[in-house]
């Protein structure tokens, strides 16, 4: 089907990752659970995942996988 699903996955998690990271960085007190700034930590992880998916989608566009 024409749409590479890695685009929406990558875009969405990049967006959520940025949101959580920024929120965790700005509102440190509100983001802490059990002494961990979980928003910051998890936001960065989601960002890495999202960007990874986007990179996959970009390389997939250059070299379309064999059917």
């Amino acid at each position, binding site marked *: 089907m024409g749409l590479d699903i890695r685009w929406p*996955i990558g875009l969405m998690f990049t967006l*959520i990752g940025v949101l*959580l990271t920024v*929120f*965790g960085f700005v509102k440190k007190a509100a983001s*802490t659970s059990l002494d961990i700034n*979980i928003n910051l930590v998890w936001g960065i992880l*989601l960002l890495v995942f999202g960007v990874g998916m986007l990179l996959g989608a970009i390389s997939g566009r250059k070299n379309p*996988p064999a059917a």
Partner: protein
Amino acid sequence: MQAIQLQWIDYTILIAYVAFVIGIGWALSRYMKTSADFLTSARSIPTWVTGLAFISANLGALELVGMAASGAKYGISTAHFYWVGAIPAMIFLAVFMMPFYYGSKARSVPEYLKMRFDERVRALNSVAFAVMTIFASGISMNALAKLLNQLLGWDYNIALWVCSGVVLLYVLKGGLTSAIYTEVLQFFMIVLGFAPVVYLGLKDVGGWKAMNHSLQAVAVNPAALNLKDAGISYAPDAWTSAWTPVLAGSAHNPMGVDWFAMIFGLGFVLSFGYWCTNFLVVQRAMAAKNMTAARNTPLVAAVPKMFFPFLVIVPGMIAVALTSMPDKNYRIPPPILSEATYAKAVDVVKNARPADSVAAVKAVGDALGKKVAPDKIASLVAANAASKLSDPQIKQGLYNSIAENYYDGVILSLVKKYCPPGLLGLALTALLASFMSGMAGNVTAFNTVFTYDLYQSSRRNWLDKPRPSTITHRDGKTEDVVITPKDPADTHYFWMGKFITVVGILLSIGAAYFASMYDNAMDIIQLVFGFVNAPLFATFLLGMFWKRTTSTGAFYGLFGGIAGSALFHSLTIAHGNLPGVKGGYVHLAREFPSEMAQNFWLAAFAFIVCFTLTLVISLATSRTKSDADLKGLVYSLTPKIVDHNIPFYQKPAVVGIVLLIVCIILNFIFW
């Protein structure tokens, strides 16, 4: 459970997700040109996508809420749903059954049955399946609407209709592909949204070892946490070992099952019945782009599936461990009561006389309408008499003294406890996503079966059948002719598929209102699966691997199996339930220790009935299909697939064996 306030960041994440799924539907809608595009994705999707959608389709209310609930009720033994149930069945599907499903070019599981047997078997299966998908979808949406109601204070009706509307929007636009894509999106949401909750929960209870240590104390006296009736005691490892308590017998584990019910009932009948014959999941593999991709779909799915217990069952165990630690100020949530009920009970506490604690306990219990812990009520009344407590303090005291658990609330209570704003939005969105895709998955399976197996087949067999007719000419002469109505163009089925999607959503909403009457959604779903799916696997097993199986044998065997399930259900009941919808409404022939045990035995019984009937009737009737007709449909008459063009480590059989070994190792680790 008190409502929680979401902040702007949580709403942003929620809205972003909804926007993305609707956007996917929109982006896909321009590829939707034929009924095959809409209903079967025209067999074009890569393996990793179908693989993740394969497990994701099953990741609705059943998995998240039900598995955490069972994790709390039964402990690590719940993992048998994966390590004894799902994984072996998924491997069997990939290696043995997929070649027939995919190779036969059937568009649905009922259509395979039509090719292998006849229209009767197809009709029986497609009607039963259609009913089941509607119920599963309704249960999912009910859980979602309840969740939004409890947690965010949304109106149940509005939540139900709005969420169903979102599902309708993206399924109507992008069809099955839309459902599969959002299932993959949701898979990542679930894993990435819940992993931090599990991590924080484990950290809070002091790690895996500390959690097990607390659970051992709980197992000896589960009544202390209202997990079981007073006086019941298990060996310390009842919640923390997967096999030892089951092997010790049904009286020695909280699930109330023995090894036979576990291995035959759950492992063989229920799980193979579900994973190998349920069109909802099989449809995902059928959408794969080629045979190898179709066969690898369940194998790709098996890898994350194997580790799901850590994501979905462990939270239930964490909840029990937390409840047993007084300093954590946590309990497994009690049944949900309205503010008005609490307000009434708060007044009763204020007016109670501490001297007469028996009367006070009874009055409070009556006001709440629930069982209460007498000592806790007595001390609450005494504390209020000594120094006036505030209303919220009394309410908290009442909340803690209710001696009943609402297990389906476990997962939410943990999310609420550990997630700060932001992460909360992520976890809630993941939950929302799983429920919505539960509906989308069922509706997309429903519309395919309805359009192709019920509507198209009845047109072809009945409405559009060539029929003799007599034409009267102008000159008075008559002529006998055969009228052959034309099969409508594909656009007709395309629009029918869309129309049925709307109908399916409306029926699901009806089923959701119906489902709101039950407390443990999981048990209900298992029961429905027992009725419909358990006998079905016997039909497939005989049909695919024994060419002598006749259509008449299959039809009456299947019918007998479903009737057998209903009969079994009407004669048995689980301990603690009243005769009625939970069984035993005709006569009480046997009482099982738990609903789980009742379900497993029901499945085993239905399977044996169907298997025996099909076998006997097949031997007594003659075959209507020749060996040539059955080529590609029956194991012994189909050329073996030779996978010589792919490296050995990608061969389904090799991958299957490796996965099986890993699964066995997991069983031993948690023995």
